[in-house]
């Protein structure tokens, strides 16, 4: 299995060298990986479930989702050109820990490479982790490699483990909340994920507990021809608080990889969840070859009164991004925020935004979206603000700005506002512009190269969002922005 993989890499060596500078995380980690046969069928769904030793109800959930998925068609409404995806040419399960059961040893093998990446991304593991006081659940391909700091968290009653472990050890919680925010019928990719999801993280913060450290998951697609279908479930019980970070990378491959994840968040009375993502999947090379298809359903449910959910995302990777982190504000006085920076370069395409569904009274939402397009890329903001009949005094403010770096790229905004309550105040503003010549000239005069100047200006432009990220992420997110735009000026 291992040899087969290396052979596949050989023909692309030249491309790899050529693009190495642009995408720093394009290594494959040579871990023995068990991959099941390509293709998707009811047997595959049963096989995944069996491999993970799942209970009957979960298999039922998967099968229902799979059968429903068969009746659906891939959505075409996004402003994206998605090449046809052959769902039978993908392997739906890859387990990098299969050969050696003793996890720590396997982690040692991974370590140098992982650490390098973590360095770049600012997600420290083990030693670094101890310094920054973070707990990390690393998901490689489909299986959680290791969850650190578990014991420390356990003392507080916090559950932070892989979702398969949670299914085994906390089946009641998982059964209660799984699919409660994103039902398996929700959309095409959610149905697919519900059928074949392999692993992900599970977080439960008990009543009144403020999570003492930032929880973090690191996702990585490693093996070739595999899709990653992780599923994250976060439940914040009354009066609790948690900040959760998610980072993603993938090796360079010239065939496209599919990533269809689901994130579900339940926020109870007076609880607060902060979810930050730095997404840096392989975006494909300068010719638009390869890259990850990132089709993600993320949704949080502000169920309780005075609950708060905040999404922050920095999207620099993926060949195609289709992602709308959403909030359902059903608790009275609940608050939702969405801060996003999406950068597209070369042939990347992104259609991203948010949905704010106001159901409860006195609910508030803020949307700040900054799109940056360069090269031949397409960058769209698509958002919905819905105020239901009973959502008295709902308040929304949306701002989406686009910055164009080049005359071959596209920047689009598609906001939707459906207002059904006369007490609502909803505002939307959008601007599109390019970096002013004056600003660049000013920097040039002071000895700053045009490329650096652009990095500087773009970072200033995105600052409003980056400031919302936890410190460790913010520094690296700034660097990522510069890396992503490398070579876009000229």
């Amino acid at each position, binding site marked *: 299995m291992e040899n087969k993989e290396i052979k596949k890499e050989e023909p692309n060596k030249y491309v790899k060298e050529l693009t190495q500078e642009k995408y720093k995380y394009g290594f494959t980690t040579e871990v023995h990986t068990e991959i099941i046969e390509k293709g998707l069928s009811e047997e595959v769904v049963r096989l995944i479930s069996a491999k993970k030793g799942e209970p009957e109800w979960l298999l039922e959930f998967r099968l229902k989702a799979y059968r429903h998925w068969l009746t659906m068609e891939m959505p075409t409404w996004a*402003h994206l050109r998605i090449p046809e995806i052959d769902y039978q040419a993908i392997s739906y399960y890859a387990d990098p820990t299969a050969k050696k059961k003793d996890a720590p040893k396997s982690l040692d093998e991974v370590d140098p490479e992982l650490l390098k990446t973590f360095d770049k991304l600012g997600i420290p593991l083990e030693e670094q982790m101890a310094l920054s006081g973070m707990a990390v659940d690393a998901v490689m391909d489909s299986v959680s490699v290791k969850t650190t700091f578990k014991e420390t968290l356990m003392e507080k009653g916090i559950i932070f483990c892989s979702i398969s472990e949670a299914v085994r050890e906390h089946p009641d919680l998982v059964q209660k909340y799984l699919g409660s925010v994103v039902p398996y019928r929700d959309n095409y990719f959610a149905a697919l994920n519900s059928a074949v999801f392999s692993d992900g993280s599970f977080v439960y913060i008990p009543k009144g507990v403020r999570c003492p450290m930032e929880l973090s998951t690191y996702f990585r697609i490693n093996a070739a021809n595999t899709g990653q279908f992780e599923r994250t479930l976060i439940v914040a019980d009354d009066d609790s608080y948690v900040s959760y970070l998610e980072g993603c990378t993938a090796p360079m491959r010239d065939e496209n990889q599919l990533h269809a994840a689901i994130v579900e968040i339940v926020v109870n009375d007076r609880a607060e969840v902060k979810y930050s993502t730095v997404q840096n999947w392989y975006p494909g090379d300068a010719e638009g070859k390869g890259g990850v298809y990132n089709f993600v359903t993320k949704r949080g449910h502000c169920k309780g009164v005075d609950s708060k959910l905040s999404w922050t995302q920095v999207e620099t990777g993926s060949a195609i991004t289709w992602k709308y982190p959403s909030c359902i504000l059903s608790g009275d006085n609940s608050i939702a925020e969405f801060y996003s920076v999406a950068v597209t370069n070369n042939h990347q395409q992104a259609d991203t935004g948010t949905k704010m569904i106001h159901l409860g009274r006195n609910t508030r939402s803020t949307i700040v979206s900054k799109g940056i397009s360069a090269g031949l890329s397409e960058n769209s903001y698509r958002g919905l603000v819905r105020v239901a009949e009973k959502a008295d005094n709902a308040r929304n403010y949306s701002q989406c700005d686009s910055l164009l770096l080049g*005359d071959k790229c596209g920047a689009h905004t598609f906001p939707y506002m459906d207002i059904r309550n006369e007490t*609502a105040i909803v505002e939307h503003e959008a*601007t599109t512009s390019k970096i002013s010549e004056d600003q660049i000239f000013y920097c040039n005069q002071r000895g700053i190269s045009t490329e650096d100047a652009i990095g500087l200006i773009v970072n200033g432009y995105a600052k409003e969002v980056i400031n919302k990220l936890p410190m460790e992420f913010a520094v690296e997110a700034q660097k990522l922005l510069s890396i992503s735009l490398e070579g876009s000026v000229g």
Partner: protein
Amino acid sequence: MNPEQQYIELFEQCEAMICKHSAEVLNAPRARAFADFKQLSFPTRKIEAYKYTDAAKLFAPDYGLNLNRLDIPVNPYDVFKCDVPNLSTALYFMVNDRFYGKALPKNNFPAGLLIGSLKELSTQYPDLLAKYYGKLGDTSKDAIVALNTMLAQDGLLLYVPKGMAVEKPIQLVNILRADVNFMVNRRVLIIIEDGAQARLLMCDHTMDKVDFLATQVIEVFVGAGATFDLYELEESTTSTTRFSNLYVHQEADSNVLVNGITLHNGTTRNTTHVTLAGQGAHIDLCGMAIADKHQHVDNNTFIDHAVNDCTSNELFKYVLDDSATGAFAGKVLVREGAQHTSSQQTNRNLCVTRQARMYTQPQLEIYADDVKCSHGATVGQLDESALFYMRQRGIGEKEARLLLMFAFVGEVIDTIRLDALRDRLHLLVDKRFRGEMGKCQGCTMCSGK
């Protein structure tokens, strides 16, 4: 039976009759439109552009049509005097979908200007009209345009030759008049040649209480350096459904103002498609709607910045009371190479009651980098502190609310470039808010004679 079927059967049976009572230029694209219509179906709410107006449902009922062009015994010049004080216009009428050609006023327009029945004039000037008719209203994209092209037999033509400035504003009053549920399909063709100037005011009125379904396709060609103002004012009844498709094609340095005002209506869907095809072209696209009861106003606009150095300004305001529904979709496309584009779009809406619905979708699609584009949309209520300020000064709450609503839509009225018409509209809007709709002076319809 699907709603398309009755129209397909109608056309198959009556094609000869339709053609006989029309002109060659109008007949030419019918077969093509029919073929397109059979391919397409009426847009349902599943179609993105018609998400908020279910056209298929609105076209399903059985309406009468006057394909045989029977005379309607009414002289609009006698019964209808909704003129604008202090504004002397060249007044024309269209009764249902037929241009009223009797007793035309003498307007002493300069020679060369053509205004009148599309059918008559296209018989006289077939070469001129064949060049323009049906060239903007693409029948392969929209079933409603296809249907209109299939069935339209007459309408208005306005042709202003090169360099001619028409001082006197032209007014066209569309009257809907029938004793049974009735469908009309009218067509307007406007050609403003290079350097010419003209202003057109179109008013929609409904005289009877039966159900009306009106489709209209307006094609406007504006030549280089020409200026054209189009004001549309709808004052119909709650049982009137209107589908209007306006196409504007602008050459270099042309300046166009379109202002669509919906004062009173049933269900209205206005589709506006503007192409800025020459450098330096400018469009002001404005609209306003005041709706209550179960009225429905849907404005769908598309501005295509096809070349560089064009500017567009869009301003739409809605005031929704009772169970009214408002929808606005404004798309601005800046094509590759359309540098130095400047585009502003604003949509502001007031929802007065819980039952009122507003759906707004401002959209930007941009493929050029040296551009300044922005859009803003808000939905909200009147400013409480402004209300409080006025009440402190002894203005009753109701009056204060009216004043604020009036000021809110005033911005759209102020874009009108005809002083007398602007004053008149301020008055009409004021009356509309006070619930004194349709009570203008003199005219037979309003005074209930």
